[in-house]
Each structure stands twice: as structure tokens, then as C-alpha cells.
């Protein structure tokens, strides 16, 4: 005899992705509960810049998800825009040398074919778009679809608007499964939540939650530092970064790579981020990392040399070996859905992910093919892991 159900779906993780899953699931008339061992936005969401980028993605499934997400973010901004500091400011990718410019131009042409708006910008127009940019660069590309939110506010307001019941400070200690393997809810340190569906939106800790359901999902942390300056009048108008950033995102190197995104914020400070290092969960300050961020930012905007950094913080971007997230149902544990592993793009990709998860939960046809995001794609033997 089945236990009485607590709700239709339990979302594990009160970060940006969990909030988006809760929002779209609730809009699909599901009764949703969200569980997190910490506060709202206590993990990677609270340690990011809030980039909603299409510009850094080459043609492929991630770009398709980014374009879907960008449309959904613009929809959400209709009601929540001011509260979550949504700014459709656009991105500006800079090529300092003619060689970098030709690589960027080729990259942008591929993106355009995939549906991205990518406008070439000459040096003179660059100066009018960003008057404080270093003179003498070869050129750039403008991406009007790039935007910005304040990630912690976005997660908190979306959760609130979803109407889902949120249980913060409550740790999931197990995933409940029926004898036939079907997921029936979660066990927590404050009692069980019974539901026919569980969404793993645990971000960097998504691998641990998967392990509780006895399935393997190799999510690993990648450390990113962000530098925050004193508040300034708006001098940096777009999301500005150097063209070599694109190479870094797909990088398999464990060493520090940095080509920082520089941007002004609604609140005044300039954000400079982020480095990417594979050093496990080490949060201690890395002066080489902040040095690299400062050098990169001054390389784009020389006036920043005299501007003070008030703080720096590190977050752990969850990544999977092929740098694509895990989104969708897990055939190894029926009733378990994954929505994690978005690396440094989780804020931007959250809306599309939430919509796709809601479609999967309600048996609707997904807006895009989920095959590349299959959570079981890393199982070489195809079965359950121990």
C-alpha cells in the first residue's frame, strides 16, 4: 500500500536551477516542495556573477538551450525584472589582434547560423559603445541577447513566485525507492517527503544526491573567483570580455585560465570574473587568481587600475566530463530527474532547464531534444553503479 504523498515533486536544491524547476513545475499545476540543507542561494548561485550568455557558446545543444533560456528569461523579466536586477545589456567580445578577430569572426558566423544575433563591430563603434575601452583593439562582436541578473535575488524571487513550499536548513539523507526501483521521495533529517518525482538540482553536490539514489553522475567542482570593485558610476555598459574566453570554457586544462568578463552592475560595483581552476573544494584565497583577473580587466579597461577591489569570492561551478549539464529523467531510477552540472552557465541555463524538466515531469514533448543531456551517458557498462 503506497504511503500518502506529500506532494507531486520534490526539488532538491534551492539555488537558481532548483528555483526555475520549481517555478515551471508549479506553472504546470504540480504541487512542488523544495528542500535545501542551506539557505536559498547558499551554494554556487550565491557565488556567481549572474551571466545570461549566448555569446560564449558555439553551435550545439548548449547553445540551443541558452537561446531557449534567453527567451524565457526575457519573459520572466516582464514581471520580475526589477526585483531580480535583470538587465538586457548585451555582450561585447573584444579581439585585440587581427588574428583574434578573424577567429572571433569565424566563431560568430557559426553562431549566427545557429540563431544567435552577433553583430561585427569596428574599432570606432567599439569606442562609442564602451568609451573607456582600451584604444587600439582590432575589433569585436556585439551580442544583444546577452543579459544579466542578480543570481541570489533571481533564485529567491522565482522560488517565492512559484508558490512552492521551501524547506531550507533540511538535509536530504536518502532517496526513497520502491522494491521495483521506482523513486518515491526523499528522506531528510527532518522526516520523509513522499512524491512520485524527485528533481536533482543540487548543483555541485548533484553527484552526491545521485549516489543516494544509487546512480552515478560524475559532477565535479571547478573553482571560480570573482572580483568586486567599489561602487562606481556606470562606466562599463556591456558584458565585455576578450575573445580567448571562448577557448577557456571548453578547456580541459586543470591549470588556471582566465579571460575575465568585465561588467558594471545596477548596484554600482564592477564585477570581474571568473577564473576556472580544478582544485576541488578549496575556498582559500588564491592571489594568482585575483592577479590574473585584475590584469585581464585592466587590459580591457585601463581606468580600472586605480579602482579598488572591495572583495573577492570563490564559487564551485559544477561540471560533467563533457561540459554539458545532465537534464531529464534517469532511466536507472524511474522518478528521478536531473537538472545539474551547468558549470559556469547555470544561472543563464536555469530557465530552459526548468521548462524542460517541467515538460518531462508532465509527459509533454520537450522544447528541444534531451539526448545530449542524458544523465546516464557516462555509464560505460550501462547499469547501476554500486
Amino acid at each position, binding site marked *: 500500500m503506497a504511503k500518502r504523498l506529500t506532494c507531486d515533486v520534490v526539488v532538491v536544491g534551492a539555488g537558481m536551477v532548483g528555483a526555475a524547476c520549481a517555478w515551471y513545475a508549479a506553472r504546470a499545476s504540480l504541487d512542488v516542495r523544495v528542500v535545501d540543507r542551506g*539557505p*536559498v542561494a547558499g551554494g554556487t548561485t550565491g557565488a556567481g556573477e549572474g551571466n545570461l550568455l549566448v555569446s560564449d557558446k558555439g553551435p550545439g545543444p548548449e547553445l540551443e538551450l541558452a537561446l531557449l533560456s534567453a527567451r524565457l528569461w526575457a519573459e520572466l523579466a516582464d514581471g520580475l525584472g526589477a526585483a531580480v536586477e535583470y538587465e538586457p545589456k548585451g555582450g561585447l567580445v573584444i579581439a585585440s589582434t587581427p588574428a583574434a578577430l578573424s577567429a572571433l569572426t569565424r566563431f560568430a558566423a557559426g553562431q549566427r547560423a545557429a540563431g544567435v544575433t552577433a553583430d561585427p563591430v569596428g574599432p570606432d563603434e567599439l569606442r562609442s559603445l564602451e568609451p573607456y575601452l582600451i584604444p587600439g583593439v582590432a575589433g569585436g562582436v556585439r551580442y544583444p541577447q546577452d543579459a544579466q541578473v542578480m543570481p541570489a535575488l533571481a533564485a529567491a524571487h522565482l522560488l517565492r513566485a512559484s508558490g512552492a513550499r521551501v524547506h531550507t536548513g533540511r538535509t536530504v539523507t536518502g532517496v526513497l525507492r520502491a522494491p521495483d526501483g521506482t523513486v518515491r521521495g526523499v528522506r531528510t533529517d527532518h522526516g520523509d517527503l513522499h512524491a512520485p518525482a524527485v528533481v536533482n538540482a543540487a548543483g555541485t553536490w548533484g553527484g552526491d544526491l545521485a549516489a543516494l539514489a544509487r546512480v552515478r553522475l560524475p559532477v565535479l567542482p571547478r573553482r571560480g573567483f570573482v572580483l568586486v570593485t567599489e561602487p562606481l558610476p556606470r562606466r562599463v555598459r556591456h558584458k565585455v570580455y576578450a575573445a580567448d574566453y571562448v577557448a577557456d570554457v571548453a578547456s580541459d586544462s586543470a591549470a588556471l585560465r582566465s579571460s575575465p568578463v568585465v561588467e558594471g552592475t545596477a548596484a554600482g560595483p564592477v564585477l570581474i570574473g571568473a577564473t576556472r581552476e580544478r582544485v576541488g573544494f578549496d575556498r582559500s*584565497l588564491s592571489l594568482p587568481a585575483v592577479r590574473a583577473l*585584475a*590584469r585581464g580587466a585592466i587590459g580591457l579597461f585601463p581606468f580600472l587600475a*586605480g*579602482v*579598488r577591489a*572591495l572583495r573577492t569570492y570563490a564559487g564551485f561551478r559544477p561540471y560533467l566530463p563533457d561540459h554539458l549539464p545532465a537534464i531529464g529523467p534517469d532511466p536507472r531510477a524511474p522518478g528521478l530527474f536531473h537538472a545539474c552540472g551547468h558549470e559556469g552557465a547555470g544561472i543563464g541555463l536555469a530557465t530552459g532547464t526548468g521548462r524542460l524538466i517541467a515538460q518531462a515531469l508532465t509527459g509533454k514533448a520537450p522544447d528541444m531534444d534531451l539526448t545530449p543531456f542524458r544523465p546516464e551517458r557516462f555509464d560505460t557498462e550501462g547499469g547501476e553503479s554500486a
Partner: protein
Amino acid sequence: MTERPRLAVVGAGPAGLAGALAAAARGVDVTLVDAAGRPGGQFHRQPSPALGAPPRQGHTWERLRTGLDRHRVTHLTEHHVWCVQRDSMSFLVHALLGPAQDEGVSLRADAVLLATGGHEYVLPFPGWTLPGVITAGGAQAMLKGERVLPGRHVVVAGTGPLLLPVATGLAAAGAEVAALVESADPGAVPRRFPDLLVRPDKLAEGAGYAVRLLRHRVRILTRHTVVAAHGTDRLEAVTVAPLSPGGRSLRILCDTLAVGHGMLPGTDLAETLGCTLTGTAVRVDAEQRTDVPGAWAAGETTGIGGAALALAEGHIAGRSAAARLYGRTPDPAGWAPAARARSRLRRFFAAVDAVCAPPPGRAGSVPDDTVVCRCEEVTAGEVRTAVSTLGATDARSAKLLTRAGMGWCQGRMCGPAVAALTGCPLTPGRRPFARPVPLGVLAALPDPDAPAP
């Protein structure tokens, strides 16, 4: 010739000075690094030389000052340390130079003694951001360093052992101290007598201040607190209310309110270095060692306890560091008097702390429209909304959702109030940069891949 081991002492207050002298006297090459232009810290703050005023006298101060010259301690003044970093075998102390703090300098040492002191905090109340409201410590610094009165008609308020000397100093310098408002209950003192009597001299010092205040006809209101400051462009009056039920509030005219609710240890450098904290203070062992090898800590950074305790701790730290830097195990018998003073003073100040804890619940009950974070202009109501409707359950998430603590002071002032409003215990904020650093200084840091000099 073998080189002498190098110890960098951060902070030239009582703890740093005592540590520097103890280590230098035992053959260590000591560099004392401090933000001020003159040694002494807040406690031994000397009048600005431009004033031509005679220096403050005192046996301890004389000993420290002359010791600095005798032991050839390198004293780097106006060096604002923003980060201490440890690499494979030594430490790098990163500082900003001069009043402008535009240029950086990095100093290498084999060991560090963190004597970074503490900072005062104020719990907010309506009107606390008006011009004319200053911290008790700020009033003291003006008096000691600049020999100026912050105002003519002053109310000194809050809680803690700092209020008595501040009020006495102001009265002696000619200010009309309209009231000393202390939230602590003197009735709680007898219960702590066994602990307080370990230092009868300190108890007598406090009583001496009280006697002098009475002689200046200063009204002392205990179990009272300032609930509002009034004024249009600047402070004109304060409302003082009793903490016990039944009493009446009163309005006191004043042009200056010197207010302080206590001190918090300065732990930024230690925290970034990786030292373990206990509560809000750096954890040290009997030798004043932190759990980071090669890093010692002394004074307020290891717990608030005043200048005498800082001296004892600094002395022990300096002797321990000297022995360890020469590869010897120190003999604690050598510093037995300091160790005795340390244990008595710690016991004494634990009792003072218990008596002078800010009234519970007050910080959490300020009106919604009161600004709690003045850097980012965040009100108590905004913090409450973040807790009640947005899911903030700790100080970090409250900060993320309101910006409280994200501004220039990085939450040093508003931390206790935000914690109280969030309903969580106060934890030291994580501040990788102990002070704001120009990006140009960060960019010019030594290349990590270059061979070490």
C-alpha cells in the same frame, strides 16, 4: 654568517609592540608593520606631532617606546596590510602605502605575529546615522590623537569597559557630559565578584573612573539604553529608555553622542591565512600559536580583553616565536608572570563580557525604517523581508539578498545587527581583502611562476 630569522609583526598596539620587543631581544630580525604614523595603537595613541603637545606619560609606554629604539626593530609606519599569504616556506605580507593607499609593497618573513586588534561596533537605533553620532572609540581617538573635543554637550552610551574612560576623558577635557548611559546592570556585578577580584586593580580602575565622573557631576544611568537620536541636519537630542519595565523614558539635549556596544576581534588576515577561529576570535594555544605553522596571534584578535592582556599575550608570542624560529622548544617557565597575568585577565574580561553583553533582543527589534547597513543603505525592514519571504536563514544569504554588508566597510559595523535581525549567531565575515585594494596593485603582485628571490 647565518642570517637572523625574520618575524613580521602586524599591528603596533600593545600586543604587537610587546611581541616585537620580546622577539627582537632574543635575536630575531623583527619588522613591525602598522597602518598608523606612530606606534601605540589605539590604547597608547599619542598626540599628533603637529600639535606640539607633550606625549602621554606612563611607565609601560616608556618601556615599549625606548625598547623599539634599543632593539633595532624595523618599524614600517603607514603600511596598511591587506593580506598575509603563506607559501611553501615563508610568509608574504602585502601592504598598501601611505595615506593614499595607492601603491603596494610586499614583505617576506619566516613567521608572522598577527596583532591586528579589534574594531568597535554599534547596534543601530533610529537616528544613529545623524552627524554628531560617533563611536565611543572614535571620540577617544579624537581626544588622544588630535586633542579635540567631538562636541560641547556629549552623551556617552552603549555598554562595555570603554565607556567609563571615554566619558571621564571627555569630562576632564572640558566637555559637558550630559549622561553616561550603560545598558549593563550593576546588580549583576556581585555575582561575578570571584572572577572580577582576580584583578582588583582593574576593578579599582573602573571605580576610580566612576568617582571622577561623579565629581564632574555626570549623571550615570545604568540599565538604560539610547532608543533614538533626534535632529534634522545634525544631532540635537537623544531619547534614553530604561531596560527594566515600568521606568520612564527621558529626552537629553546634546550635540554629540559617543556610542559603542563592544568590540569584535579583527580576524580578517588570520582567516584568509587559514587560521581556525573559535567564535569570533582567532584560536591560539598556550604559546599564542595559531594552527597555521609559523603564525602567532596576540591581543584583541584572539579575544577582547584590553591593553594589559594584549601586552601579556604579545610578550608570550614574541618569546615563543623567537625560540621556535631558532629551532628550540620554548620553556614556558620563562614567561610565567605573563602567563599568570594572561589567565587572570582572561577570567576578568570574561566576567566583564558577561556583565556588559548588549541587551538581548534590542538589535533585532529596531523599527523597520532604521538603516542598519549605512554603506549600502539597507533598512531593518529589508533584512526582515529577506528572512520572512525570500529564504535568508544566515548572515551570508541575508547579505546576498539585501546587499547589507557589501559596501565599503564589508559588514564590520552592521554584522552584529544583521545577525540579530536574521536570528542567527554572529560569525566573522569572510574578508579576503582586509582593506580595499586597487586593481593595479593586484595586477602588479609578484608573478607566481617566477622563481622566488
